């Protein structure tokens, strides 16, 4: 009975911590799509009147914004525009498909977590000379080409303009995000501007932030520049939007600390309840064994040897049942991981649950300590038993 309680407590602790770790691993993996400290900047309509201009103006980022942020602001490692033709019909011979065609700078490939399979990425000279060259995602290649077909050097027809394929890439992300990446076609933003009449516009900006700089500070700086360029009210929150992975990461980190704290709280509570239960049951045992303890004392047992006797017993029960719970917890977490994997279960938010050795050791330590504490009071009670009372013939 007590053994089950302690087992359960340790089992819960190990299992919950393992599951929490799985959740954490899953979400951390979500952030692998882009370098850890990345920021997206986009625009929409103004919400406030400013300098005699009415609200509701549509704001578009342009090359000037890009150049200014790139050259004037500190703490920016890489910066690239992303000018998108979302869901564009692309033709090749008799095959076709609808893909996202994205105009970017060469530095995009330093921010995004992609893997080059064939050829090369878009480079500086592509951008400068507005070359009609493209790199395509793995899924695009699989859809438009036969498995043994030569891809590099072939042309795709995008809205009536022919582009030459110079590279094929795969995504390092997982799940939906990987699919999004691999269904994209990249080319230089300058070529997009020229071929599809975007003029000076650059769509969104993607920025990676250098080590030692805070994304919130950079965001404020960028907003200042853009507000000035486009005559936006400084307090207008709608015109310019920004999302930073660092801020998001912080939120998730806080969430995980919360979850872990809760798990530890529940598990410790269970162990504590187990300790009290052990204590109570040991008290009853001591009552039942009053006579035995009396006999032992009559035969020369010292109070300390009685304390030792009872403590040993409590410790023994604790450790045996605790180790059982520990093994069951670790085993189940391990099996869960395996089963998820073999079933091909790909949940974006749960991945590779595991138990730290340090957690296991800490659990074991908590166990031994709780065993000692649980045994202490009954043991002291037992040592106080007077042999005369115990031996009084009933």
């Amino acid at each position, binding site marked *: 009975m007590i053994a089950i309680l302690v087992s359960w407590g340790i089992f819960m602790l190990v299992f919950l911590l393992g599951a929490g770790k799985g959740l954490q691993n899953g979400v951390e993996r979500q952030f692998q799509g882009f370098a850890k400290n990345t920021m997206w900047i986009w625009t929409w309509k103004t919400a406030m009147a400013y300098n005699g201009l009415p609200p509701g103006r549509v704001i578009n980022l342009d090359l000037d914004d890009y150049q200014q942020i790139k050259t004037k602001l500190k703490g920016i490692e890489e910066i690239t525009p992303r000018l998108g033709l979302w869901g564009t019909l692309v033709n090749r011979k008799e095959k076709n498909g609808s893909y996202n065609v994205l105009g970017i700078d060469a530095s995009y490939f330093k921010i995004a977590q992609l893997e080059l399979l064939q050829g090369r990425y878009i480079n500086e000279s592509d951008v400068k000379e507005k070359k009609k060259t493209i790199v395509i995602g793995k899924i695009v290649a699989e859809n438009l080409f036969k498995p043994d077909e030569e891809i590099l050097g072939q042309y795709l027809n995008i809205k009536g303009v022919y582009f030459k394929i110079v590279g094929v890439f795969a995504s390092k992300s997982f799940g939906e995000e990987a699919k999004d990446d691999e269904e994209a076609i990249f080319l230089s933003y300058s070529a997009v501007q020229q071929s599809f009449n975007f003029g000076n516009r650059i769509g969104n900006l993607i920025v990676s932030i250098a080590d030692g700089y805070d994304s919130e500070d950079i965001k404020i700086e960028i907003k200042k520049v853009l507000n000035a360029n486009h005559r936006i009210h400084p307090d207008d929150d709608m015109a310019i939007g920004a999302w930073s992975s660092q801020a998001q990461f912080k939120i998730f980190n806080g969430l995980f600390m919360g979850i872990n704290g809760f798990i530890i709280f529940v598990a410790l509570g269970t162990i504590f309840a187990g300790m009290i239960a052990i204590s109570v049951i040991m008290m009853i045992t001591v009552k039942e064994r009053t006579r035995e303890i*009396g006999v032992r*004392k009559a*035969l*020369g047992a*010292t*109070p300390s040897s009685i304390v030792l006797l009872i403590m040993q017993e409590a410790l023994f029960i604790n450790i045996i049942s605790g180790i059982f719970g520990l093994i069951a917890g670790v085993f189940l977490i391990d099996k869960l991981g395996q089963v998820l994997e073999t079933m091909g279960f790909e949940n974006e938010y749960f991945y590779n649950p595991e138990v730290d050795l340090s957690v296991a050791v800490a659990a074991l330590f908590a166990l031994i300590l709780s065993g000692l504490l649980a045994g202490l009071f009954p043991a002291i009670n037992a040592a106080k038993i*007077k042999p*005369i009372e115990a*031996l009084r013939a009933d």
Partner: protein
Amino acid sequence: MISLRNLKKSYINGANAVHVLKGIDLEIAKGEMVSIIGPSGSGKSTLLNVLGILDNYDEGEYYIDDVLIKDLSANQGAYYRNQFLGFVFQSFNLLPFKNAMENVALPLYYRKIKRKERNEIAKHYLEQVGLADRWHHLPSELSGGQNQRVAIARAMANKPKLILADEPTGALDSKTSEEIVSLFKKLNQEGITIVVVTHDMHVAEQANRIIRINDGIIDHAGY
């Protein structure tokens, strides 16, 4: 060997002090077998507890072999009980989950004698009480008389100066009682000092000497 001088003890019962022992003087020589009798409430049990170092007393002196037994700490009490005394109880008080040999060896465990050695000693004493072939039996597998013999073997295992027996035949039928009393007599003839507390006159009469206690004092210490 055993010497009590003007020994007094009282219990506080609410506002009143109940005087249980009102000045006991008693000498027991080495090799004697003495029985203590008296009606219930006479102070007989209290005297036994004091003799057994299971309880303290207020006034007077108690010597075992010239060692003053007074105001002992729990550890000293445990030590002297183990060194000087062997106990035999009415209800045997054997540990139910240990076999006969382990029960007999228990006092030796508290003397920190190694398991192998104490088991050999235990077997030796079981042989003396005629249970050599029953050493591996649990108390529940033995008869009342056999259990009491195991208890006597246990009382002898640490070679005590004195064996204290509290109603040792109280839970036994008359035939078995006879056997136990004969065993005590046999041990006494081998030189062991024995004090038997009883209210069974048949048992009491087997002793060298009967001490009658009444209302906290000894009113008869004849032979």
